[in-house]
C-alpha cells in the first residue's frame, strides 16, 4: 500500500521541497563556535571544506585551502551545501502513515512497525521478498553496514544501491580489463598528460574541480579531445570535439583504434609484454574504417584520424570518461572499447599516463566497494566466489550456507516489485521514483508494495509513498569515511548531532538489526568501530583498506587503496610497471562489434533524447531542490534543442515544447542553442513529477552491469 497518504499539496506544505535561504536564519552571519574540517557531500571530488558551526547548527562555510585535492576551490553546490542544515523541511521525528497523512511517532513504534512488516512479509513470501536499496552518497561505514544488515538481519539476496544507475558499467569493464575497479591514476597525473580524451564527461558541470586540472594540462601544452553530443563548458575550448551521435560510442572507439593501427601509433612492445587478447581486437577493428565509423557515429573521418594522431603521438596521455559512454545498454562494451585505446598505446601506469572513470556520487567509489551491491561482499569480494564467501562468513561468524547468494540489481528490484515478486522494501538515501528510468512504471510498482520503509533526512518523492519514514542523518551530522573518484579514502568529521528526534543512519540500521534478533552482529558503538571491522575484513581482499585508520586518514589527508598495512603509503597510481590485477598480471583486451541502442530513432520518434546534470543540482534533487540559491541558478528543466530543429518545429527560445517517448511525455521550455547536435535534445534529470526527465527514459539494461540506458532513447518533439 504505497499510494500517497494525503494530497500532494499537503505533502508539499508540510515537507517541501521548499527552497530555503540562509539570510532568513537568525544564526546566519554570527561568529561560529568552531570550524570543522570536513568534505562536501555533493560529488565524488569530495572537496575539502570547513563548516562553520554555532549552537549545534551549521551556519556557513570557509574554504579549506590545505586540502590537496581542491585547495579551497568549490562549486556552487559545495558553497551552499550548509543551507540544507537547519532546514524547514528537515525530518525531526519518525513518521508513520496514518489515515490522513503522516503522523509523528516514537522510535519504538516506528521500529516495531518496520520489523513486524519485515517478519510478516518474509514468513509469508520468503526472505527474498523483502529488498533493501542503499546509496552511494553514504559513507563507507554505512555502505558496509547496509550489506551486512541485508545479508544477516534480513537474510535477503536482494540488496542493491543507486550506484547501479551511475557507473557500474565502468566498474564491470575495469574489472574485466584490469582485474580491479578503481581509477588508475591520482588526479595529480592529469596536468602531466600531453593529450586528454574526455569521453562523455561534462566535467565543468558535474565534476567542476577537475576543470583546473584539465586547464593546467593545457597550460602545459596538452591537446584536449572532447567526445560529446553537446558542447559543454569543458568542450568549448577543446582542440578537437567529436560530436558523437548518442549511442554510437563503441563504434567511435573502434574507429579511433583502427586509425591508431593504420598510422602505426601502437605500442606493440607494451601489448606483447603486458596484455592479452589484442589479436582478436585488431582483427575486429580492421572493419571500422573511419569512413564507416563516420557513417555510424556522425563524427567526420578527418576528426577520427586527428584524434588518433593527437593521442598516439603524445608522449603522455590520459583518458577520462563518465556517464556519457556508461549509461547505455552496451555501457560495458563502450568502456572496454575505450580502454582498448589506452592499452593499445601503452598509455597507463606512468606519471601522466592513465585512465579513469569519473565517479559522480559523493561516495561513488567507496559506495561500490564494501558490499552493498547484490553481487558483492565486503572488500570488493565476489558473492559467487566460494573462497570469498567463506572468508566473509567466517569473519562475520555465520555459516556460509546462511549467506545469501547474488540478488537482483536496483532496476530489477523495481521490476520484481511491479511483477509482485518483491513485497517489501527498505530504502535509504535512494529516491528511485525520480532517479530510475520510466518513472510512471516505478510509481505503479511502489503502489504494489505491501510495505515501504524509508530512511531519509528529507521526505523524498519516494519517501512520500512510505508506510514508515525513519528520520536519519545528513552527512554533517555523522562521521566516517568516503572514497573519492581517484580512490583516495578521506575522513568526514561530525560537525553537529542530528536535530530533534532524528538519529544517525548507522544507529537506525543497528537498532533494526538488533530488533530482528541479530544483536551480536550490530553491536557497534560508533562509526569508528564499523570502520575497524570494514578495514579488518578487507585484508587480503581485492579492495584492501586494512592499513587505514581514522588517525592516518586525517594526518595524511586521505589514503589511496590498496593500503595493506599500517606503514604502507597507499597506492595513488595503479599498474606501475605494467602490472595489472589479473592472476597473470596482464591486462585484457575485449573487442565488440557496434550494436544499436535498445531504442533507436525511427520515423515516429525521429530525435535522440538524452539526459544529464546541471552544475547547481545534485542527482534526484532531494537536497539541492531545497537550497534556494541553487534552485534560482537553474530553477526548472529546460529542453536544449538546436535552432535548425527548432525552426523546423516552429519553436522559439523559452517556448514550451512537448517531448514524447514511448513511455511518457513532458512539457518543458525550449532552450534553443547551437551547442547540441540538431538530431538530439537534452533535458536534465533532477526534478520530480511532471518535470521528471525519467518519465521519458528507457529502462533497458546493459546485460553485464545492469545499468539502464539513460543516455539515449527515441523521442518526438512538438510545439505546444
Amino acid at each position, binding site marked *: 500500500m504505497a499510494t500517497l497518504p494525503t494530497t500532494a499539496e499537503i505533502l508539499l506544505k508540510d515537507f517541501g521541497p521548499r527552497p530555503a535561504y540562509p539570510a532568513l536564519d537568525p544564526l546566519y552571519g554570527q561568529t561560529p563556535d568552531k570550524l570543522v574540517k570536513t568534505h562536501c557531500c555533493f560529488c565524488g571530488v569530495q572537496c575539502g571544506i570547513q563548516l562553520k558551526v554555532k549552537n549545534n547548527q551549521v551556519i556557513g562555510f570557509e574554504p579549506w585551502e590545505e586540502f590537496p585535492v581542491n585547495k579551497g576551490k568549490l562549486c556552487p553546490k559545495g*558553497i551552499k551545501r550548509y543551507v540544507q542544515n537547519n532546514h524547514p523541511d528537515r525530518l525531526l521525528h519518525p513518521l508513520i502513515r496514518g489515515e490522513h497523512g503522516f503522523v509523528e511517532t516514537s522510535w519504538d513504534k516506528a521500529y516495531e512497525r518496520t520489523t513486524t512488516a519485515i517478519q510478516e512479509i518474509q514468513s509469508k513470501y520468503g526472505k527474498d521478498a523483502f529488498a533493501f536499496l542503499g546509496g552511494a552518497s553514504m559513507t563507507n561505514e554505512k555502505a558496509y553496514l547496509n550489506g551486512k544488515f541485508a545479508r544477516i538481519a534480513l537474510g535477503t539476496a536482494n540488496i542493491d544501491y543507486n550506484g547501479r544507475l551511475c557507473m557500474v558499467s565502468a566498474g564491470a569493464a575495469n574489472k574485466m580489463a584490469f582485474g580491479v575497479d578503481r581509477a588508475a591514476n591520482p588526479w595529480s597525473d592529469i596536468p602531466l598528460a600531453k593529450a586528454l580524451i574526455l569521453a562523455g564527461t561534462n566535467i565543468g558541470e558535474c565534476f*567542476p574541480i577537475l576543470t583546473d586540472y584539465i*586547464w593546467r594540462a593545457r597550460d602545459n601544452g596538452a591537446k584536449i579531445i572532447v567526445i560529446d553530443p553537446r558542447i559543454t563548458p569543458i568542450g568549448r575550448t577543446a582542440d578537437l570535439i567529436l560530436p558523437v551521435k548518442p549511442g554510437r560510442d563503441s563504434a567511435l572507439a573502434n574507429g579511433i583504434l583502427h586509425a591508431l593501427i593504420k598510422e602505426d601509433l601502437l605500442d606493440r612492445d607494451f601489448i606483447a609484454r603486458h596484455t592479452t587478447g589484442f589479436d582478436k581486437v585488431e582483427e575486429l577493428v580492421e572493419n571500422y574504417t573511419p569512413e564507416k565509423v563516420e557513417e555510424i557515429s556522425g563524427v567526420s573521418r578527418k576528426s577520427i584520424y586527428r584524434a588518433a594522431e593527437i593521442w598516439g603521438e603524445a608522449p603522455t596521455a590520459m583518458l577520462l570518461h563518465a556517464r556519457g559512454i556508461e549509461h547505455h545498454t552496451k555501457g560495458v562494451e563502450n568502456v572496454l572499447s575505450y580502454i582498448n585505446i589506452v592499452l593499445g598505446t601503452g598509455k597507463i601506469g606512468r606519471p601522466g599516463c592513465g585512465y579513469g572513470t569519473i565517479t559522480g556520487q559523493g561516495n561513488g567509489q567507496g559506495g561500490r566497494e564494501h558490499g552493498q551491491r547484490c553481487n558483492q561482499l565486503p572488500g570488493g569480494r565476489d558473492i559467487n566466489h566460494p573462497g570469498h564467501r567463506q572468508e566473509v562468513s567466517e569473519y562475520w561468524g555465520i555459516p556460509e550456507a546462511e549467506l545469501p547468494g547474488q540478488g537482483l540489481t536496483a532496476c530489477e528490484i523495481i521490476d520484481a516489485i511491479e511483477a509482485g515478486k518483491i513485497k517489501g522494501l527498505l530504502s535509504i538515501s535512494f529516491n528511485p521514483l525520480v532517479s530510475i528510468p520510466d518513472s510512471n512504471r516505478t510509481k505503479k510498482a511502489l503502489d504494489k508494495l505491501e510495505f515501504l520503509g524509508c530512511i531519509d533526512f528529507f521526505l523524498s518523492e519516494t519517501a512520500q509513498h512510505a508506510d514508515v519514514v525513519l528520520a536519519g542523518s545528513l552527512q554533517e551530522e555523522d562521521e566516517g569515511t568516503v572514497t573519492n573518484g581517484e580512490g583516495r579514502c578521506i575522513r568526514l568529521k561530525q560537525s553537529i548531532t542530528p536535530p530533534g528526534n532524528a538519529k544517525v543512519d548507522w544507529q537506525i540500521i543497528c537498532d533494526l538489526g538488533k530488533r530482528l534478533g541479530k544483536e551480536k552482529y550490530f553491536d557497534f558503538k560508533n562509526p569508528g568501530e564499523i570502520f575497524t571491522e570494514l578495514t579488518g575484513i578487507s585484508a587480503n581482499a581485492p579492495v584492501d583498506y586494512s592499513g587505514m585508520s581514522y588517525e592516518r586518514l586525517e594526518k595524511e589527508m586521505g589514503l589511496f587503496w590498496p593500503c595493506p598495512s599500517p606503514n604502507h603509503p597507499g597506492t595513488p597510481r595503479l599498474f606501475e610497471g605494467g602490472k595489472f590485477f589479473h592472476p597473470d598480471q596482464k591486462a585484457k583486451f575485449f573487442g565488440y562489434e557496434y550494436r544499436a541502442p535498445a531504442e533507436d530513432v525511427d520515423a515516429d520518434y525521429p530525435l535522440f533524447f538524452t539526459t544529464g546534470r546541471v552544475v547547481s543540482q545534485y542527482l534526484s534533487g532531494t537536497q539541492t531542490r531545497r537550497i534556494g540559491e541553487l534552485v534560482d541558478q537553474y530553477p526548472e528543466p529546460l529542453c536544449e534543442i538546436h535552432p535548425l530543429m527548432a525552426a523546423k518545429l516552429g519553436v522559439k527560445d523559452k517556448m514550451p515544447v512537448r517531448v514524447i517517448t514511448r513511455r511518457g511525455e513532458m512539457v518543458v521550455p525550449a532552450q534553443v542553442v547551437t551547442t547540441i547536435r540538431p538530431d538530439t535534445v537534452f533535458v536534465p534529470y533532477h526534478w520530480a513529477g511532471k518535470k521528471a526527465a525519467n518519465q521519458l527514459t528507457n529502462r533497458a539494461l546493459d546485460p553485464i552491469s545492469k545499468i539502464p540506458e539513460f543516455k539515449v532513447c527515441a523521442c518526438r518533439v512538438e510545439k505546444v
Partner: protein
Amino acid sequence: MSATQFFIDASRCIGCKACVQACGECETHRGMPMIHLEEMDRGSTVQTAPVVCMHCEDPTCAKVCPADAIKQDALGVVHTASKPRCVACSNCVLACPFGVPKMPGKFELMMKCDMCYDRTSVGKKPMCATVCPSGALYFGDESYIAEFRREVPVNTFSFGKQIVKTKVFMMAAPLTPRINVDMAVLCGFQNEKAEAIGFHHQDMAEESVWNDLPFRKPAREKEVVS
C-alpha cells in the same frame, strides 16, 4: 607591481557561478553578490565571463561622482560608495567602462566589488578567486602566472581615446600589449581593417601564437605531485 595580484581569464570560465554564490556569502554584503557572471550569448555558445571590479588606477567612477563618495585606498582598491555621502545619482554606474557598480534600489547606495577587503586586508585571498574551480579567477603570485600560463596578463585597456590602467589583470593571447575595446569589434571590422586601427582582440590571435609557445614547464611536474 607587487607579487600578489588578481588575474581574470575568461577562456577558463565554465559558467558554474561558484564565484557568484560565494560572493553572496560575504559578511559585508550578505545575500547580494557583487561579482557578475555574464553569459555571452547562450544561443550560440556556453561562453561566460566573470566581471569583478577592475580597480582602476584612476577610477572613472570616482571621477564622475558629484558627492566624492568613492574612495581608493593605499593598496589601490576602489571601495563601495560611502553611505553618508552617496546621493544615488548613478553617475558611476553609467560611467564605469567595465559596467561594474550597481545601484540596488532598496539601498540607494552604489555597491561594488571591493576585492573582499575583509579578507585581503588580513592576508587571505578574495572569496571568488579562492573557490573558482577553473582558475578563471586567480589571486596569487605573479610569477606563477608568468611561469605556468600560456596567456599573458594585461592591465591596459583602451576605450576609444580613454586609456585605462587597472589593478586587476586580464589574461589575453600572447603578445597582446593592451586590450582595445573598440567599436570596430561591434561593427564587424575584421582582420586588415582591424589591424589598421591596432585592434588585437583575443580571438584574433594567430594560431601560430599558441603553437609556437615555448613550453618551459618542467617545474610543473614537481608542483602537481600531492
